[in-house]
């Protein structure tokens, strides 16, 4: 009963947005049935497709946390993209510095992951500091910091000693083997890392005093403050954690997927992970069990969109339409079904 009541807005939103897209596809002269089949079933149809979906899921889930954790305090971290770029860039620099010093990956890989998380976290902390010290809205500072992250990555990708020789697209040299994430077939071990993180996030947010303090401020900052919760400290901590998640996503992409820093590695299916992450976070409203599940479904949708483009020549942008329509409808229905 409770579950049904809660799912109502989602079911409506998904139904209506798919219906609308179906009509659009039909008007464009394609078969809606075929399109939906590709979109919904293709991502799960083979091992290859499942791997492709999972590879999108890993950075997407981390980007979702990057938005959703600071968002509990009504801070909009839309800087996941920049934080991801910084994490990836720092990992590339540190990783390349070991180019001629072979070292056990058992030491280097965890170190690089830590470096990625910390650098992303510290980068987001700039926005946190501006917020706490001068009251600068996190939206503004993180948008601006996205440019910083982007140009920092570009700079490293086009400047010796990091730049790859003889290439048109800005990218660095390949990282040494001992700096890469171990793989199983086409999939790297990042999946285990994010599963671990998903469990950890759920535990911390629902079972610890820190999680309670974050939640309390989200409900009422003034009451929390006068009952002894330090708001500034928690603002900084949540932004650090959010930035660390995005930074880690950057590190994982660089170490696991591209094996180098590559301009635009933060982009997938036509938009950046930060955007998809914030959309996903807005759909689930901070429920720590729903976040990984929904993130996986969104990853599948993105993968399905890629397939749809390949096999039917339908533009991937259709999926953005679906996702955007869904978010809008979910948010509006949530309000409507509440009373």
């Amino acid at each position, binding site marked *: 009963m409770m579950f049904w009541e809660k799912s109502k807005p989602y079911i409506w939103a998904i139904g209506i947005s798919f219906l609308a897209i179906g009509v659009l596809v039909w008007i464009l002269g394609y078969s809606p049935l075929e399109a939906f089949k590709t979109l919904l079933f293709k991502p799960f149809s083979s091992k290859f497709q499942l791997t492709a979906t999972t590879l999108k899921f890993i950075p997407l889930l981390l980007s979702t946390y990057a938005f959703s954790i600071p968002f509990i305090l009504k801070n909009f971290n839309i800087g996941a993209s920049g934080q991801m770029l910084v994490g990836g860039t720092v990992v590339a620099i540190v990783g390349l510095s070991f180019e001629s010093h072979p070292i056990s990956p058992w030491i280097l890989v965890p170190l690089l992951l830590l470096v990625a998380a910390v650098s992303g976290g510290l980068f987001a902390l700039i926005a946190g500091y501006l917020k706490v010290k001068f009251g600068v809205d996190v939206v503004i500072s993180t948008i601006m910091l996205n440019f910083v992250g982007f140009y920092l990555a570009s700079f490293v990708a086009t400047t010796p000693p990091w730049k790859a020789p003889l290439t048109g697209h800005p990218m660095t040299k390949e990282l040494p083997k001992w700096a890469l994430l171990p793989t199983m077939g086409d999939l790297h071990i990042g999946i285990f890392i994010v599963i671990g993180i998903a469990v950890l996030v759920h535990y911390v947010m629902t079972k610890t005093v820190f999680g*309670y303090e974050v939640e*309390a401020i989200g*409900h009422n900052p003034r*009451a929390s403050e*006068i*009952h*002894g919760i330090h708001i500034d400290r928690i603002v900084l901590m949540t932004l650090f954690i959010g930035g660390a998640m995005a930074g880690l996503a950057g590190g994982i992409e660089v170490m696991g997927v591209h094996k180098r820093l590559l301009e635009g590695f933060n982009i997938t299916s036509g938009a950046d992970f930060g955007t998809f992450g914030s959309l996903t976070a807005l759909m689930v409203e901070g429920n720590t069990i729903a976040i990984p599940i929904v993130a996986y479904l969104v990853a599948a949708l993105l993968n399905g969109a890629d397939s749809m483009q390949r096999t039917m020549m339908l533009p991937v942008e259709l999926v953005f339409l679906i996702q955007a329509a869904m978010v809008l409808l979910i948010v509006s229905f949530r309000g409507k079904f509440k009373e």
Partner: protein
Amino acid sequence: MKAVELRGISKRFGDVVALDNVDFSVEVGEVHGLLGENGAGKTTLMNILYGLYKPDSGKIFIMGEEVKISSPLDSIKLGIGMIHQISTLVPEFTVIENIVLGDKSLGTFKFDVKLARKKVKELADSIGFELPFDKKVKELPPGVKQKTEIVRALYREAKILILDEPTAYLVGDEFDQLLKAINILKEKGVTIIFITHKIREVFQACDRVTVLKGGRVQGSLDVRKASEDELVSLMFEGQKIEVTDSALPKMVLEDVEKTKSPILKMINVSTNVPNLKNLKNVNLEVYGGEILGIAGISGHGQKLLTEVVVNPNLLHSGDILINGESTKEKSTVDILKSGVFFTPEDRVLEGSLPTASIYKNIFLGHHREERFLKGKSVVVWRKVRSVSRELIKLFKVKTPNEVIEIRKLSGGNMQKVIFARAFLNPIDLLVTHNPTAGLDMASVKFVFEKLLEMRKSRKAVLYINEDLDELMAVSDRIAVIRNGQIVKVFQREEFNKREIGKYMAGVVE
């Protein structure tokens, strides 16, 4: 003619029956009291009339005609105005802007300020209200906000005015001003519905009264022919409560030997917080076994007086000793752990996490106590919930369980949860600001008993309240605060409403 007639109104919220087949009618030009204890359904019934809730069944007639009201826009068009307990004004707008908000006749793009001021001033003068037209609403005390809301309703040509617990936040002579205005409005033919849980106010303000209990009508009476006992028995059905002249539960202060040294000692306490009335060289001592009342007009430093005890960061100079120990180096959490607790003035804005469950609300401020934690940082929610269930039972909070959001409780029950939170642990010192705001008589009595229990077990209570009657009912001493300073301390033998009032108002320095 009947201004309002409600027939067979029922309303459920989930499993809770809020109103059960209620019939209610008000004649044109009368002041009609709607009396009942907390959670009786008074506000719900009026929210239905105002279009905030849809009834599950029942019909609404205005001036004899059946109407459909599906939002406040409809009810405003029908000439209904409602003044809620919590201000619905725009805080960033001035008084005048709030009043004329939405009036297109003052100009489409730019409104005619002079004309607006003239119209509003006439209106306010006609009911004897003086308003600071150009002040922003957020700077005003609750009483002035309420006057602004009344004028706004009249500006929108309300013929039926609903006042929801209008006296809950009034201080000094504001109640008399309200009574005067009500009488003028009545002469003008405005119908008034006066929601209250205070029997005294029914006799002061109303012509007729309808008593609600548990969502049902207990009866409608002519106030002139009704007796206090009759109303009490309708409201409480048999529960016997003795009341004083000021319609407060009668309390007896037993002789208690005070502790030798004070539990709370404030030495030359001054604060320096922007945008609040600051404390200036406050010296106070509260001994175990006594209740020290703090009287004063709202906004004279009470808020910081409450807060500074638990938050030494607010101290600008001076020192606060609790059981002889300075709190300067301590954090709020440390102080709350050391046998001190407080209840802040505003139950919604400061006291609660409105959208969180009851048990998470009770946990607030206790969230660093070892007994609820495993290790240093893991919460054992099972324990928090079982303690919450006990408190709910002990403090008679009306709720199906401890999991529901606190904002879904009625105002009085919400207040009880916040008050209960302070008694989760045995405490030496309670600092409590307006703990009885919006409580019915049975609950007020309960709060008083709790304060007296603390007194009896030789603990200290710092009791801050704007209602002098309530302070006088249980305090051993009353200190008057004005402009952030303690201007006078009265012993219980010297209590005299008029005298204390003079110091509150600053007539005597």
